[in-house]
């Protein structure tokens, strides 16, 4: 049974000007320990999908959500708000694009860790939290955990903050980690190190990952399976290697062609809107379980 099963997910927002449909029937699944990527450009709906899985959009007035989102077999829609909140930070956690602004600037790292750890052990003291945080920081290859714990986020580099965020996200040993464009705000060498680190950690702990990105290269290196999303629809899905080596859908092919190559080559002539982008979904192999 998959850890996360999304079927026919639809999302609409009610605005001044009328109803805006954002997601038109998303289907995806993640098994235990699997690394799955959701690739799309801005406005494709990838970030809102993550927020629905986290249970953040369900309570927004004006948001109408249809379809099924099952986590560990339980439909999120059938849970109360309280129960959804209980999952967040414990069984499902998330890391975000810009690490420095995702951490609270007016608190040092240690109290922020305590807040995170308190989700599992509500009565944890600051001293106990420091001890566990030190061990977690060492896992993410931070050599001076004490100094980091006593620093404010703005005193640390972007790469350091990203690792702190990963440590916090994995602190409560979640079953599922959502990663929204991690490393985008970092230098390319730091990004490479961070992604290696993440890959190692999730393999060690058996955590599943839903990795959201617009960066094809990162997706190729990190994900076992890939879903390509275009304007609220999944257009291609399958094992990463299959999708990248033999993209079947017009949109996926356009994305591949548009990406400049390290090996050089001429600049392609890309059409931004092509009716073929709305072709039906291309599936490689047997998706999910």
């Amino acid at each position, binding site marked *: 049974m998959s850890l996360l099963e999304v079927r026919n997910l639809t999302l609409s927002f009610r605005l001044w000007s009328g109803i805006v449909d954002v997601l038109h029937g998303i289907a995806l699944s993640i098994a235990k320990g699997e690394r799955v990527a959701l690739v799309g450009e801005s406005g494709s709906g990838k970030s809102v999908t993550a927020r629905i899985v986290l249970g953040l959009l369900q309570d927004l007035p004006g948001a109408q959500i249809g379809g099924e989102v099952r986590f560990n077999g339980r439909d999120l829609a059938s849970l109360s708000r309280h129960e959804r909140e209980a999952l967040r930070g414990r069984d499902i956690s998330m890391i975000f694009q810009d690490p420095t602004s995702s951490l609270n600037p007016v608190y040092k790292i240690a109290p922020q860790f305590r807040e995170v750890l308190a989700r599992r052990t509500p009565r944890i003291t600051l001293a106990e939290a420091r001890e566990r945080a030190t061990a977690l920081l060492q896992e993410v290859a931070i050599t001076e955990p004490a100094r980091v714990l006593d620093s404010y986020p703005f005193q640390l580099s972007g790469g350091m903050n990203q690792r702190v965020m990963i440590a916090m996200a994995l602190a409560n040993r979640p079953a599922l980690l959502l990663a929204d464009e991690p490393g985008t705000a970092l230098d390319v060498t730091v*990004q490479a190190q961070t992604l290696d680190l993440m890959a190692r950690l999730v393999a060690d702990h058996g955590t599943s990952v839903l990795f959201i990105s*617009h960066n*094809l290269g*990162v997706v190729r290196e990190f994900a076992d399976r890939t879903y390509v999303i275009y304007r609220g629809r999944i257009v291609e899905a399958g094992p990463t290697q299959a999708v990248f080596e033999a993209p079947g859908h017009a949109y996926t092919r356009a994305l591949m062609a548009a*990406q*400049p*190559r*390290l090996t*050089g080559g001429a600049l392609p002539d890309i059409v931004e809107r092509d009716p073929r982008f709305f072709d039906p979904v291309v599936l490689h192999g047997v998706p999910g379980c």
Partner: protein
Amino acid sequence: MLSVQGLSKIYVTGRHNVAALTDVTLTVQTGECLAVVGESGSGKSTLANLVLGLTPPTAGTMMLDATPLPARRTIDHRRAIQLVQQNPLSALNPRRSVGASLRLALDVHGIGNPATRPAKVSALLADVGLTPDYAARAPSALSGGQRQRVAIARALACDPRLIVLDEPTSALDVLVQAQVLRLLHDLRLNRGLTYLFISHDLAVVRAIATRVAVFRHGRIVEAGATDALFTSPQDPYTRSLIAAVPVITEQEKAMRDRLGASS
């Protein structure tokens, strides 16, 4: 056309000094695209600020077409060097129409007479692939790619000698980035423009630059023609940069591994 010699910039902040650029010497030939590549803290943004005359150098000289560029620029100097920024949303005044933003350069430099300027604005929009009716629109009504095209049109408006592009496609989606890069490339070839292209994205640099200068901690570590630099980079830092780029094809992966193994 542009040459800088021994350029240095030290920022004095409170307790300590930050050497953003140290002894940088390079030239940009007319009609080429020189890419400046580096990570954060490499000094590439500082170089842009110095070339644009936004901040004076601590040491060194700059020459444009063999005449020196002073620290305080005259209006003719300003006209000669223009800028395309990274963030197209912030780069256009949200309270002015697209046409008004484009007209600014024409009005400031007295290009044409006031009666002909609207026509010139339409011509500029056409150059970047937008229809004349865009002139009346507000920037908030445009997509990121369209805004960046307007920013490019604005940079072209006063016929500059050199255009500095500071990460012009980093904030754009993949498909839009491809279109904008193609537009920039075609404009340069068709009009003999000259670009100083600042980027952290090596794949983009490979696609668009004729020559590349690699910066690290405020110094140039390697410079050369694009193909040569990518096929056989000399400096270990350059190699590590290339090796860290996430790639999508097997050929690129093979190239990276080959370079990474020898660093």
